[in-house]
């Protein structure tokens, strides 16, 4: 006998046609799955009655991977085979990993694949595979609870995840046999969970301090539509760091300078974590942990001490808060509500200080650990078609500008940062040289003016462009960012219809804090960039003039110029070429002007010659009429 759930009026599904969909919060530290059951979004418990499982996977030499709490039990005894915080490595390359603290905790294989893999007893495992194991476990919990196969899931990702990280998340879902209905930014999911679409129009800040990532987002609600105005954050800041700081303090207090192994460190971290949790409601917390001879930790920690330990870490979140306000052009007083998300917002100091920053009491009504999964479940229910009349529409933004490299190594921004997605933007480009039949397109991401200072995402070529004079071809380049934040770039030559396109799946993502660094650099280097751009533009102009004169000289230089005149122009060209080698924009400008002046006689003669050619054989009256018409047009 099947067990039935209550549907919305008129939305009952035919038997065997129920569309079961879930929301998954795939976290750095913990992961949850939720679904809408009989009209209310509920976090699903597993057979051990846990609604949240640690994002930990244990790989043994024989047998299936173990996920969750049972995996975590092995953390102390078999640390290298107990993988946690794999989310931090999603979409990352070897360079990012070897610079990360994870490199100290695990053994990696950097050689055998394009992405680094954890070396485990069961073989090499990439972050994608580890995440897939976690997702399969959540899927199985959901299918047992809901009594059927899932049609799909909404999986949440930090707002700061770039294309590579989002793609890695989708790949993990595919490995776990989960159809991704949508990747949803975590803060957006939190807003959905709070039902803010039903509230008053206005701006809300979502402060999300989780286990491993920090995000601050400003969302604007208007007539039930969410729009992410701006997001910022730090992909390497969270409760894990609090735990590490407290563990360091514990070592200092107990006069321990080094721990014998990773297992001991983990036990100490577990103690640090439990002290942190106790201090969310208590003034003091006693501790006692014996890790062996002269490794005795015993004492008591006061909440004030704890606050002073984590204060510096907390303060790292404030510049991002200021940045989103600046990006969105919103004053603190315009923020109507501040929603707290993530387990670390249980820390009283965090709630208090965020409240002080935004000058209001922060919202903590919904369990900050469940709120993202709940929002994802609500969105999944809509996307699975269980609420066809719903007008819940989500808009997200891209975190960094997307553009193309143009002549001179300059960036032409096509989609500015904080543009809402999905989006399609087109821009026309043209050829630079006569007879050019191919065009190389270089897609870059970042805020700086020069390609060298931005991040390269992809390169591709448009071939078989019809050979025309420079500037005659019209090539439309289209940037499309889908609802999941994934980019496709295509180029179309309008006359011939030749097309080339590329899906941007970069081989590795931005390293920790790199996005923030890129934004900061763009502000610090703003005036320098203007000069660099001026120089680059001048160089492009100079080269264009050299090119044009050279082709004119080749064509009919000898016909119009005496050898004396010719050598004079050659000298000017040489001096322009020389100035192009240098980095002084004014020198190039001067040389261009001199060359233009020096070659004006030549240009005039060529013009006269071509006019004569045109007029040959035309009646005078006809010519007069033409001149009159032209004049009228000019009027």
């Amino acid at each position: 006998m099947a067990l039935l759930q209550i549907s919305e009026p008129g939305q009952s599904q035919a038997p065997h046609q129920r569309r079961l969909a879930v929301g998954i919060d795939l976290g750095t530290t913990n992961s949850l799955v939720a679904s809408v059951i009989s009209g209310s979004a509920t976090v699903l418990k597993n057979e051990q009655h846990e609604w949240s499982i640690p994002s930990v996977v244990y790989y043994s030499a024989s047998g299936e991977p173990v996920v969750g709490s049972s995996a975590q039990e092995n953390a102390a005894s078999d640390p290298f085979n107990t993988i946690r915080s794999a989310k931090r490595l999603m979409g990352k390359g070897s360079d990012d990993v070897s610079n990360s603290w994870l490199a100290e905790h695990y053994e990696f294989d950097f050689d055998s694949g394009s992405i680094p893999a954890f070396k485990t007893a069961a073989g090499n495992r990439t972050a994608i595979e580890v995440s897939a194991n976690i997702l399969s476990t959540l899927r199985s919990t959901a299918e047992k609870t809901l009594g059927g196969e899932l049609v799909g899931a909404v999986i949440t990702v930090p707002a700061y995840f770039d294309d590579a990280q989002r793609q890695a998340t989708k790949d993990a879902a595919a490995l776990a046999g989960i159809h991704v209905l949508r990747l949803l930014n975590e803060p957006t999911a939190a807003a959905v969970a709070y039902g803010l679409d039903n509230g008053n129009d206005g701006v809300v800040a979502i402060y999300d301090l989780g286990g491993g990532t920090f995000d601050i987002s400003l969302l604007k609600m208007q007539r039930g539509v969410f729009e992410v105005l701006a997001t910022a954050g730090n992909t390497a800041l969270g409760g894990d760091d609090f735990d590490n700081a407290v563990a360091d303090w514990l070592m200092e207090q107990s006069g321990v300078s080094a721990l014998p192994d990773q297992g001991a460190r983990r036990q100490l971290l577990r103690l640090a974590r439990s002290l942190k949790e106790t201090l969310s409601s208590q003034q003091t917390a006693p501790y006692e942990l014996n890790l062996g001879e002269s490794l005795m930790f015993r004492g008591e920690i006061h909440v004030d001490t704890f606050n002073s330990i984590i204060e510096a870490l907390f303060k790292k979140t404030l510049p991002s808060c200021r940045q989103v306000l600046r990006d969105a052009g919103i004053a603190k007083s315009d923020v109507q509500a501040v929603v707290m998300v993530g387990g670390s917002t249980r820390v009283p100091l965090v709630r208090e200080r965020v409240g002080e920053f935004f000058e209001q009491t922060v919202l903590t009504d919904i369990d900050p650990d469940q709120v993202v999964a709940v929002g994802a479940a609500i969105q999944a229910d809509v996307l699975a078609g269980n609420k066809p009349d719903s007008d819940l529409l989500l808009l997200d933004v891209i975190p960094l500008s997307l553009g193309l490299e143009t002549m001179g190594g300059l960036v032409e921004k096509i989609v500015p940062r904080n543009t809402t997605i999905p989006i399609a933007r087109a821009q026309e480009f043209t050829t630079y040289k006569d007879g050019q039949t191919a065009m190389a397109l270089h897609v870059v991401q970042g805020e700086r003016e020069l390609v060298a200072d931005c991040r390269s995402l992809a390169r591709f070529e448009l071939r078989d462009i019809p050979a025309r004079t420079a500037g005659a071809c019209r090539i439309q380049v289209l940037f499309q960012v889908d609802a999941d934040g994934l980019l496709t770039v295509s180029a179309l030559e309008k006359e011939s219809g030749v097309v080339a396109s590329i899906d941007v799946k970069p081989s590795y993502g931005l390293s920790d804090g790199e996005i923030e660094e890129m934004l900061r650099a763009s502000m610090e280097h703003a005036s320098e960039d203007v000069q660099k751009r001026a120089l680059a533009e001048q160089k492009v102009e100079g080269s264009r003039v050299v090119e044009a004169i050279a082709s004119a000289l080749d064509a009919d230089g000898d016909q119009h110029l005496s050898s004396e005149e010719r050598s004079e122009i050659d000298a000017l060209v040489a001096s322009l070429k020389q100035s192009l080698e240098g980095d002084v924009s004014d020198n190039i400008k001067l040389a261009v002007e001199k060359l233009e002046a020096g070659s004006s006689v030549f240009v005039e003669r060529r013009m006269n010659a071509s006019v004569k050619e045109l007029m040959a054989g035309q009646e005078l009256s006809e010519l007069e009429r033409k001149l009159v018409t032209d004049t009228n047009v000019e009027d």
Partner: protein
Amino acid sequence: MSITMTERAAEHVKSYIEKRGKGIGLRLAVRTTGCSGMAYVLEFADEVAANDEVFEQHDVKVVVDQKSLVYLDGTELDFAKEGLNEGFQFNNPNVKDECGCGESFNI
């Protein structure tokens, strides 16, 4: 003619309606679909139509249209748990046989 509901089922219905924020009760119905003829419909009720019958038990209103009532008369609605899965169950004395999954039935 009557429809009954166990107290456990009523408690769950009440809590779902409360979380949903609106609704006057529960609508039960049958429709002709599914692998063995008829299928149950279980929905939130926002209004009572002219030809509806309303039964009230444990402070929960159950709305049934007269056509469906013929097939549902004497049914008890229960709430059950099977492992992790939990949900509502129709104990319908009119049913002759049902498909393996129990979502559709014959009279």
